[in-house]
């Protein structure tokens, strides 16, 4: 497979002072649709050292999604590197790497061609160098194990011996990818980089950073969203051994909201600076703060959901296909149901924290962030800095799930470090972390269907009402976002279809949560389809397959279409794997859901047992995934396992409730997470094909929720239309 680059200046080869060959890749010119930046910058993705070791740059932040292993694997594959002599180096944030955010299951989607092109380009240069040196035609060479290999004579030349020649080679304009069936690294179970450090306490997370002269801090924020500080008495706090200073943080002093859509006030509170984390926590407990809640709507969950319900008839239309009114008039019957999904916190295992050294107009940041771009932008806006005055390091991150898309905690830290002129490590307590999240929006959703004589859908209307994470300036108004998108399932499959959004204003800070809108919207859609199957006295999978219709490409939006055959394949396979058609003892049931997401297709079956006290035990989960080529099966499987468990756990327990304008939960006793004894066996299979790899961080999560709810129905005859299942 050839990838022709019209741009000659795609890579630059240089030899470093120590004699290593460094391949700088011009990332933007690998992205065909992107306009070229004015300044040409080359990111040094590949370094071949004179001792044969190869350093590969991991450009995106590692949040547990395995990207620090997967992206370098792709580079190494095309290069023909010996993985055992590869060192992966985490990049700092730098515009030379182009996009470095982590989210939306995009890492592999955006970087597959890019990493292949970069690796292949350097491979070709090395082959050409070898061909010159040995005076043999380039066609007779391949690379393998960090060597150029002459296939006819079995002669080899290690990469490191080709550095001088390679640096003189004119750069190729055309690259040829390796055939996928010759892959030696991609597609193998490669243990993640850092594994040895992760099992021995040696992996450095952001929260572990220690700098000379560093002081420790924590913040006590007004638990009420939109609340501020009226006054505070810090006499007792200052008496705590080790407390150095108390500093009030006031959002208004920094120009109010800065951080994009629905940005909460990010600094209203009182910070305690101390010589240890514990002293700062202790100091914070001794603070007596009078909060100013005059700006709060003093919302509570019941009232919020009443407003969501009230908004159902008052919507904007996000997608309109055919005519649902007409479908209704000619329908043999109709059915509708209303569902509720709660607000959710992220509760990443590593609480929000950041370390900043902001001295002499230089701001150096060690941030556990998914979104270094936003962090840089925030620092520029907040302090009027120039990009070159900001240095952002990307340490390993203890879970993100969308929470670290927002950079509020880093802003706090930068303000404090600048104020006291020392490096500061700010650590939020778990309580602050849960009370000051950017929550997954709760919503009320109504689906109505018109059905023909056979009970199949002729008209589909899905209305979602809530406060949107996309609404800019959430409480003041501004243009409304939407939490239901024009491409949402089953768009494209039903001739008469309407997706509508009812927008409500709220104080609750809202944000991306793993799988974003699908985390909330898959539950109603796939439970509704299950209800239709039962109404129709049909097997749920049979009904779903009939609903999908024949194998074909289904146009969704613009040039985005999806291949129904791929969805059918995963469904049929999971049916078989889970023993779907075999009977279960009384009190047990199986539930099913299948979806597409981030370009991948996934079908899941959950099996449960429900006892007389309505206690649900999840017995097993089966999942079949088609995400194209699986780059690292071990990491990919981990993403599916994690996504499924996160979905199941959210469905069972996940709920943030609001009272008097604040979150009621604060730690793992009231924001429950699944524990070992509740975890079922999970059986996962990947469909083998040669299609380009697609996203996997998010797609496994959404179907787990309706699959569980449907399983409980199958076991008990009780429909679940409101989450969480366990109150």
């Amino acid at each position: 497979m050839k990838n022709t680059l019209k741009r000659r200046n795609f890579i630059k080869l240089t030899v470093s002072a120590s004699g290593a060959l460094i391949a700088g890749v011009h990332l933007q010119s690998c992205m065909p649709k992107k306009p070229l930046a004015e300044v040409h910058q080359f990111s040094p993705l590949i370094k071949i050292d004179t001792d044969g070791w190869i350093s590969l740059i991991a450009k995106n932040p590692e949040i547990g999604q395995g990207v620090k292993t997967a992206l370098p694997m792709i580079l190494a594959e095309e290069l023909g590197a010996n993985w055992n002599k590869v060192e992966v180096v985490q990049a700092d944030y730098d515009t030379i790497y182009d996009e470095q955010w982590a989210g939306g299951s995009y890492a592999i989607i955006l970087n597959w061609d890019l990493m292949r092109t970069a690796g292949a380009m350097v491979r070709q240069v090395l082959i050409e160098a070898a061909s010159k040196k040995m005076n043999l035609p380039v066609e007779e060479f391949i690379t393998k194990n960090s060597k150029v290999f002459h296939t006819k004579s079995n002669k080899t030349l290690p990469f490191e011996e080709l550095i001088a020649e390679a640096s003189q080679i004119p750069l190729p304009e055309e690259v040829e990818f390796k055939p996928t069936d010759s892959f030696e690294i991609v597609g193998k179970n490669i243990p993640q980089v850092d594994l040895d450090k992760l099992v021995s306490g040696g992996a450095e997370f952001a929260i572990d950073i220690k700098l000379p002269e560093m002081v420790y801090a924590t913040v006590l924020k007004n638990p009420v969203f939109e609340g501020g500080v009226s006054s505070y008495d810090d006499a007792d706090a200052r008496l705590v051994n080790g407390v150095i200073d108390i500093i009030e943080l006031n959002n208004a002093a920094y120009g109010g909201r800065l951080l994009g859509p629905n940005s909460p006030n990010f600094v209203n509170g009182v910070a305690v600076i101390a010589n240890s984390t514990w002293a700062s926590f202790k100091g914070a407990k001794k603070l007596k703060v009078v909060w100013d809640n005059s700006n709060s709507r003093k919302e509570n969950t019941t009232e919020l959901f009443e407003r969501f319900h009230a908004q159902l008839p008052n919507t904007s239309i996000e997608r309109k296909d055919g005519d649902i009114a007409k479908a209704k008039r000619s329908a043999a019957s109709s059915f509708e149901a209303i569902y509720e999904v709660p607000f959710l916190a992220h509760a990443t295992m590593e609480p929000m924290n950041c370390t900043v050294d902001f001295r002499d107009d230089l701001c150096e940041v060690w941030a556990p962030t998914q979104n270094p771009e936003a962090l840089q932008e925030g620092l520029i806006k907040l302090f009027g800095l120039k990009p070159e005055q900001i240095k952002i390091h990307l340490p390993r991150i203890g879970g993100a799930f969308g929470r670290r898309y927002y950079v509020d905690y880093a802003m706090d830290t930068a303000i404090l470090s600048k104020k006291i002129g020392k490096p500061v490590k700010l650590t939020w307590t778990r309580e602050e972390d849960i009370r000051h999240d950017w929550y997954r929006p709760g919503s009320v959703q109504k689906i109505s269907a018109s059905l023909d004589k056979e009970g199949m859908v002729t008209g589909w209307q899905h209305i979602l009402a809530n406060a949107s994470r996309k609404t800019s300036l959430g409480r003041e108004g501004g243009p409304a976002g939407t939490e239901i998108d024009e491409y949402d399932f089953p768009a494209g499959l039903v001739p008469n279809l309407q997706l509508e959004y009812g927008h409500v204003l709220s104080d609750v800070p809202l944000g991306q949560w793993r799988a974003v809108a699908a985390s909330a919207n898959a539950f109603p859609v796939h439970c509704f389809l299950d209800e239709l199957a039962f109404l129709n006295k049909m097997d749920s999978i049979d009904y779903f397959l009939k609903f999908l219709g024949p194998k074909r490409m289904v146009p969704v939006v613009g040039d985005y279409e999806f291949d129904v055959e791929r969805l059918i394949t995963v469904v049929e396979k999971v049916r078989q794997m889970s023993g779907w058609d075999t009977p279960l003892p009384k009190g047990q049931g199986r539930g099913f859901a299948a979806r597409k997401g981030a370009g991948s297709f996934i079908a899941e079956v959950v099996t449960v047992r429900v006892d007389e006290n309505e206690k649900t035990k999840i017995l097993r989960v089966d999942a079949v995934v088609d995400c194209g080529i699986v780059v690292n099966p071990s990491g990919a499987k981990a993403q599916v396992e994690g996504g499924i468990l996160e979905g199941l756990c959210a469905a069972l327990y996940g709920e943030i409730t609001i009272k008097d304008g604040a979150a009621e939960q604060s730690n793992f006793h009231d924001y429950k997470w699944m524990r070992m004894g509740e975890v079922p066996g999970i059986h996962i299979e990947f469909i083998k094909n040669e299609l380009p790899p697609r996203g996997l961080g998010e797609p496994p999560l959404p179907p787990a929720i309706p699959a569980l709810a449907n399983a409980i129905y199958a076991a008990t005859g009780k429909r679940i239309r409101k989450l969480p299942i366990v109150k």
Partner: protein
Amino acid sequence: MPSYTLTVNSVKKTVSVDADTPLLWVLRDELGLTGTKYGCGKGLCGACTVQYKGNAVRSCTLTVDSVLEGNITTIEGLSEGQNHPVQQAWMELDVPQCGYCQSGQIISAATLLSKNPNPTEEEINAGMAGNICRCGTYTRIREAVQLAASKLDE
């Protein structure tokens, strides 16, 4: 501030901290042993698990003055060069995702196996119940504990 002498990974260490300072923060901020993690501060999540006198304990809930009598084993001191069977099993099965909970998980597993070298699945569930993994590595942890047990058998 009073000073305390603790035995951490078989080495005596003296620190000057308030009596109510949790062991967790002594390890992390005073001794630089950052493998032990802060997750909840309330004994709810297990991220801070260390061994004290051979038992798995939550270092966020034990004050420094209560752990002066016996050896404290942290993840850094569990073995030389990751050669504890639990660490080996963890690496073989590529258990961690984000990795943040894993020090606590490994210490809990090592403690469980030191008391019960052949745990049933139920016993593993019970022994590991104090440790939350937000990323969902549970199924691999369960497998890794079984694998480590089989390594101990050899």
